[in-house]
């Protein structure tokens, strides 16, 4: 006798977010990356519709990275000292669908670049590469409020994903994203309530809820991954049950977390596996967008996604 699958039908749907705008959409990207739009819990293909696979963005910086592990640096060779060559390797050699640019060089302690310099960097990058782009600030609230509007304006019309808005500091970023037609990352500290509150605050400013991507903040494997996992799972259950204020796709900064662990630093192969396994676990909990660092880890995760989505 054939076993009957118990199927669950949910009333809610996760927002579908498009990153990158083609020429006819007012941008200059060569492709558009789409995430979200699912009507079921992760990978339960029979229960509902999962229109898009999880996507991977290569993390690059606007300056030579300072605290990258040797294994990470050597993966890109000397190229890592020049952001444009670094980006080129990601796009040409590793076929990056999406780049995640971290404006670390604008941080007061790491270069303190001016808003003009930052804007110039962004427009050069957009000119040289036609890949859709994620732009995130350095994490210094005051400085981000100066440079992010400039970066946003430089990328006007390109429908980037910009971030990260946090509960203490979201207004400037939201205003910029509204003005320049970008999507926004809303970051909360592994807290489902703050995630929801921040989405409400952002939408109170007139920003479309369906253009928010939530960064739930994650911990790497062995470093609190299970907290992130359960927060994501709870948010997803609430969203599918009909809570629109939580129905955002997730972006997870896997690379930065995995390569912070002492296990990753202890042994190069272990580092790659740490990043791979962290990403693989987060796909199970509903990650839509993974920001990763090591090309080998990206390759493994891509293969893994293909296997998972093989019909």
């Amino acid at each position, binding site marked *: 006798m054939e076993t009957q699958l118990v199927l669950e039908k949910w009333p809610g749907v996760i927002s579908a977010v498009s990153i990158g705008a083609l020429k006819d959409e007012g941008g200059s990207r060569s492709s558009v990356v789409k995430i979200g739009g699912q009507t079921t819990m992760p990978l339960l293909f029979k229960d509902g519709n999962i229109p898009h696979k999880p996507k991977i963005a290569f993390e690059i910086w606007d300056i030579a990275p300072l605290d990258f592990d040797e294994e990470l640096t050597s993966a890109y060779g000397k190229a890592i000292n020049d952001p444009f060559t670094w980006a080129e390797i990601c796009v040409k050699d590793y076929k990056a669908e999406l780049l995640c640019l971290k404006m670390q060089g604008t941080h007061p302690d790491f270069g303190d670049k001016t808003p003009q310099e930052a804007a110039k960097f962004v427009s050069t990058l957009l000119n040289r590469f036609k890949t859709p782009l994620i732009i995130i600030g350095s994490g210094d609230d005051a400085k981000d409020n100066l440079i992010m509007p400039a970066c946003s304006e430089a990328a006007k019309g390109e429908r980037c994903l910009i971030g990260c808005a946090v509960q203490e500091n979201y207004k400037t970023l939201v205003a910029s994203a509204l003005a320049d037609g970008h999507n926004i990352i809303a970051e909360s500290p592994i807290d489902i309530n703050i995630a929801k509150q921040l989405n409400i*605050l952002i939408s109170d400013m007139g920003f479309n809820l369906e253009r928010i991507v939530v960064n739930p903040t994650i911990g790497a494997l062995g470093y609190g991954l299970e907290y992130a996992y359960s927060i994501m799972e709870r948010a997803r259950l609430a969203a599918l049950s009909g809570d629109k204020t939580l129905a955002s796709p997730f972006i997870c900064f896997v690379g930065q977390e995995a390569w912070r662990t002492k296990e990753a630093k202890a042994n190069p192969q272990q580092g790659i596996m740490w990043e791979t396994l962290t990403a693989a676990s987060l796909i199970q909990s509903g990650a839509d967008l993974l920001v990763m660092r090591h090309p080998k880890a990206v390759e493994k995760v891509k293969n893994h996604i293909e296997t998972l989505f093989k019909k």
Partner: protein
Amino acid sequence: MEKYKVKFIPDNLTVSVEKDKTILAAAISAGIYINSNCGGDGICGRCKVMVQHGQVNSQPNGIITAQERKENIYLACLTTVHSDLDVLIPDSSRINFDKLTPEELEERLSGLYSKAEDVLTVKPKFDDKVFKHSPFATKIYLELPAPTLNDSISDLERLYRALRKFGEFPVIETGLFNIRQLGELLRDYDWKVTVTLGRRDEIVEIVLIEPGDTTGRNFGLCFDIGTTTISGQLVNLNSKKILGTKAAYNQQAAFGSDVITRIVYAAKSDGLEKLHNAVSDTMNQIIKDLVSAHKVDLNNVNCIVCSGNTTMVHLFLNMDPSHIRRQPYVPTANFIPVLRAAEAGININPRGLLNCVPGVSSYVGGDTTAGILSSGIYQKEDPCILIDIGTNGEIVLGNRDFLVACAASAGPAFEGIDLLSEMLKAGIIDRAGKIKAQGKRIRSTDNGKEFVICFKEEIQAQADIVINEADIENLKRSKGAIYSACSILVKHLNLEFTDIHKIFIAGGFGTYLDIEKAIGIGLLPDLPRSKFIFIGNSSLAGAREVLLSSQAKSMADALALKITYFELSVNPGYMEEYSQALFFPHTDLTKFPTVRF
């Protein structure tokens, strides 16, 4: 030990203190109360004083700025006396107990603590189960037959025999003081005396024997001993009429603004004594004012009933409160036997009696029991909620079958509800309580942004009136604590808010609370507005019922045993509920369907 003279300006009061005493301690011994929310730990920065002359030794701290240091401004609690001093205490560092005229204070507090008459008029009629009038102290006039050879029982038994004609008194007790003077008194006044009977549960005590008929002069007091405010009422025990109500700030405020800081202070040397004196001084002042305003002789005030939270009762009775704060949070006593008021330092008739309404646990005290008694929720068929919104919030959910109570410490922050609600509506702050607007009334400070409500020029004041993000955060936490406590209690009993028949709002802000705004910020659940009833100071009202009726006293004792204490801190869902409530009105907007901004 060297002693120095410290002169306080502009009071021009000089006290002599030992070297190395703090300026704060010196001020208290001079009877000047300086703000000290943290209880003298150098944290709150409210006790700034200017040393105009003399040597001091000050501990470094992050509160005094370089500029202030240049102006010889110090924290009174961290600065010790090293020579004769002249100290200026600015108005901003004072607790102005006496700054207001009595009328002004009365007016300010009348809103905070509504008058008993008001409480009575808004008090809902339940089953009209009125307690029988049988006051804590009763006066009975006796004309005894003089003894003869045929009727030769002793004087005391003669007195008892006559008394028993007035009621069933299984046990009558008399102190030696009264027995000693009995024989002479009876004979001198032709066997005509008035006996004051005090009730100690089943036992009655002959409190006082007076010559002649004084039954017309029988008065009692009831008190609500709050953390921030103490209010008292003078009651005619014969007519049940309230002669007057008076409230004053609890002078303990000089030792910290919440119960925990005060418990910590009590552990310091002489700390408990000082806290005890502060509360009894406040009460004696209220009593003095009440009796003189209503021309009552202190000797005719025969009894007093107090209700207060457990810590306040401990401090009032000079009992060590330290274990209230320590796990497993055990008070010295919940049920206090009837005492002589003089033992607690209360100045009424020297033989007058004192009763404290029994408490439930360390954090649900006699004020809650009294609130349940006076609100009558213990008689209702459908579940009701009683919320006592004060410095220590208490919430009771129950009906005639069960009563569950929990404590939700809210802090002294609710004055801002109206303002906050309007700021939300006007878009000055966002739902997380952060100031989002810009303009000349918004300023950035070291403590985050602040909003200027009134520039000093607009109101001819010395300083601008502002509210800053930290204030808003405080209020957000307070309202979150109250709402989430209600929510957890309701859930714990497998109920929904919609099952709640009535919500009684008692205490602190009672009459000033705007229901619409309180719901708008998420302090109270979004229920039909007709479900909310304000009952004013329910603790005081309950104490008065106990004062006027022994039945009410028995009921209060029974209630205190019946109430189940629910400890929120060990409830796994509480933190979740609480963090959901830290948003205006709530993270889950569907819980507040009628709220729109």
